[in-house]
């Protein structure tokens, strides 16, 4: 008993130095967003850090530094900071388009290995440079607003579900390529303008926000997206804003020798949020007619998105994954070779549940 006590107390007191070093909340410098750009062959790092001096008053400040490789960006910033820089609260990493074109694999895998970084961190691709975007976000006196912006758009907008964890999942698995939000500056405000398509961590191209809703329905069977479409009826042109209530996609892979063909069945339960005033939404007959038009429209759009992706030779939907799930002798390399020729048949079923209050 005495020995036990002695052991406990000596462990407690003599080994206390061997523990993790203290990181007291107000004596570390957390960074909430980090950007990487390539500039004349060098890497430029931009970090946003919040300061909480007064109650309810957050000021965002910026560290910038240039290095010849990305690895020592944070140590270089640390040399500028009063407190040690900690990445534990980092939840947004932005890459300039130029940087992303050369590949973000190094950064991502190193974040993945660091136990301090959150796996629900958001990533993004900037239209020009990460610096532009982060610089303009400095004026918003709200901490963590960049990742909140993306999360909000995943919850109630057109972005499919994504974060570092899902990115890594797509990155490491065979049969699906990565997507990241694509950010632009509009009137000096940061806007999410669709999705960037990546392959093996390298930026390929991007799609717009309307296409990203279609991609969202194809990937997660989404909810809450909004979709504007132009309708021509009786030689009149009008617009309809659909609110996607619930969507479900099923994939059927037809196994055949050589090139597989995939049958996509898309069901969307939607609500008409806004419509041009000449649309008559009172009669069931008209709604059925409208549904038929929308069916055609979505079939075309899905088909167009797939052929677009096939054109870039990226697979954001994960068609490869569907094929892999259905094949005994999976050969990723072979699939990538035949991917542009994979045939898809789309069947859509739009169901308008609700048109709002009518009389």
């Amino acid at each position, binding site marked *: 008993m005495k020995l036990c006590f002695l052991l406990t107390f000596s462990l407690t007191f003599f080994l206390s130095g061997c*523990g993790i070093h*203290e990181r007291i909340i107000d004596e570390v410098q957390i960074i909430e967003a980090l950007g990487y750009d390539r500039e004349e062959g060098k890497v430029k790092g931009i970090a946003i850090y919040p300061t909480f001096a007064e109650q309810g008053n957050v000021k965002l400040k910026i560290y910038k530094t240039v290095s010849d490789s990305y690895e020592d960006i944070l140590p270089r910033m640390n040399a500028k900071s009063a407190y040690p820089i900690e990445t534990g609260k980092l939840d947004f990493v932005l890459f300039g388009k130029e940087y992303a074109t050369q590949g973000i694999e190094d950064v991502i895998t190193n974040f993945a290995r660091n136990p301090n970084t959150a796996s629900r961190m958001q990533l993004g691709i900037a239209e020009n440079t990460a610096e532009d975007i982060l610089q303009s976000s400095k004026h918003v006196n709200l901490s963590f607003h960049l990742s909140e912006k993306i999360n909000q758009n995943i919850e109630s907008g057109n972005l499919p579900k994504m974060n570092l964890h899902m990115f890594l999942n797509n990155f490491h698995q065979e049969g699906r390529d990565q997507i990241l939000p694509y950010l632009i500056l509009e009137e000096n405000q940061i806007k999410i303008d669709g999705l960037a398509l990546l392959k093996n961590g390298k930026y390929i191209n991007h799609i717009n926000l309307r296409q990203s809703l279609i991609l969202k329905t194809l990937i997660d069977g989404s909810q809450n997206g909004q979709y504007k479409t132009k309708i021509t009826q009786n030689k009149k042109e009008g617009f309809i804003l659909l609110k996607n209530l619930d969507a479900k996609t099923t994939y059927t892979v037809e196994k055949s020798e050589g090139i597989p063909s995939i049958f996509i069945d898309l069901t969307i339960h939607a609500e008409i949020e806004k419509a041009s005033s000449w649309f008559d939404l009172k009669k069931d007959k008209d709604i059925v007619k409208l549904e038929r038009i929308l069916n055609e429209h979505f079939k075309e759009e899905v088909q167009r998105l797939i052929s677009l992706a096939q054109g870039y030779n990226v697979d954001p939907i994960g068609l490869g994954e569907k094929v892999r799930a259905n094949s005994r002798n999976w050969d990723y390399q072979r699939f990538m070779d035949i991917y542009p020729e994979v045939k898809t048949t789309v069947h859509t079923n739009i169901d308008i549940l609700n048109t709002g209050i009518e009389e």
Partner: protein
Amino acid sequence: MFFKKRKIRNNKDKQAVTENSQDIGQLFAKVKKSSDFKQFPLTDESGHLIISYYNTLVDQQQLQLKILMIFRETPFELDRLEKIDDIKKIIAIEDIVITDNRNEAESKLLKGYAILQMKENDQRVALILLSNDKAGLREQNNVENEFSVVGPQIGFLENIDVNIHLLRQQINTTDLITKEVNIGSTSNTRVIIAHIDGITSEQHVNTMTQRLQDIDFDVIFDTSQLHQFIEDNSLTPFPLLLPTERVDRAVQALINGQVAVLSSGSPYVITGPSTIIDYFISPEDYFLPWILASFFRLIRVFSVLFSIFGTSIYIAVITYHYEMIPNDLFGSLSTSRYNVPFPPVLEVIFLEFTIELLREAGVRLPTKVGQTLGIVGGIVIGQASVEASLTSNVLLIIVALSALASFTTPIYKMSNTIRFLRFPLILFASIWGGLGIVIGIAFLLIHLTRLESLGTPYTVPFYPFRPEDLTDSLIRSSYSKTSKRPNYLRPKSIWRYHPHNHKKKKSDFDE
């Protein structure tokens, strides 16, 4: 070695004393040194019918009415009284003992008996009970520390006979057995072990009796002292027997098959064997509907957990694990600590110390001053220390809440334990962060599961797991489910009552 020698010498002294003073005369020589000792002859004839007593121990009224009146009133025929044994015929007092044993005379004299001798230096004396039990004791027996809103407010008193009376009022059966032992070489305190025959396991009664008889101490002030002597493990902060001042609580313990110990001069009854969950049970639980009672009992348990772990989790998170603070909270936590110069541990220890200080001072001070101090302490010191940047205001909330939560346990001794347990956890958290808390919890659980109360496991419905005894533990099930006595007490009869005999109520609409 040193202690052993001392002990032997003490024993020798004792023997010497007893040998020297075998007769009554020497007893009187000794007690005459006290100013409140009275000795005088009852009749005119000196050296005849001498009464001796402690003035302060006897009831003056009884002395006058039952003794002086008889002997002083004329005419009193002395012939009626030839031997001392005849005194019983003359004096109308129930408890008269005739003895020539000097030791018995001494102990009875000190309990408020008067000694009556036929002649001076007579060895055979009559001991007449004139004691005034109630003198100096309080009359009010309202419950003070285990207050409840619903239910009876009757508590125990310092008078042991009244306490037994209170128990007998509720347990109206001859099966309630009270065993008396005298403990304390100086105080010679009456201690009563109560149990219900045919329900309580002999083993518990025997253990309790054995342990009480083995006590060697000088003055027993309170049952809480006895509690410490007879505990199974004295190296624990947890109370292993349950002290209560409520009659209904003691009765509940007895009918469940526990043993109760009462001590003269103590308003607290200790009951055992008890389990840890007993300390979270309030008698009020049995007076409220079972759903409400269970809910409040769970709140009590959670508040205790919060009270133990609140501040140490704060330290661990603020010092080591800032990652786990939600984004929205990060700003306010960081701001609140911005001007504080101390590390979180010192900050917490400073505030905990302040709260303990307030509580200690509040207990010592008179009620009216105490209230003022509470307000001054709580509001002024708290606010001022935040303004002076000595502590962060988030911590102030946590510390105040956990102090409040520690008092939700119905048993005061347990709330002391809970307040104490925080400090080792604070130490662990400050050294090792979250890992330290886990280590602390591991130590706590190991310690708890090893504890025993009168040989019964302390954590019993949970470890060892006894599912049938869970009916009245974390939740208070309805009375139809608590008809059996808890098994871990090994009662001789398992059924308290038979709920199934009641016919199902019929609704008027059934007919």
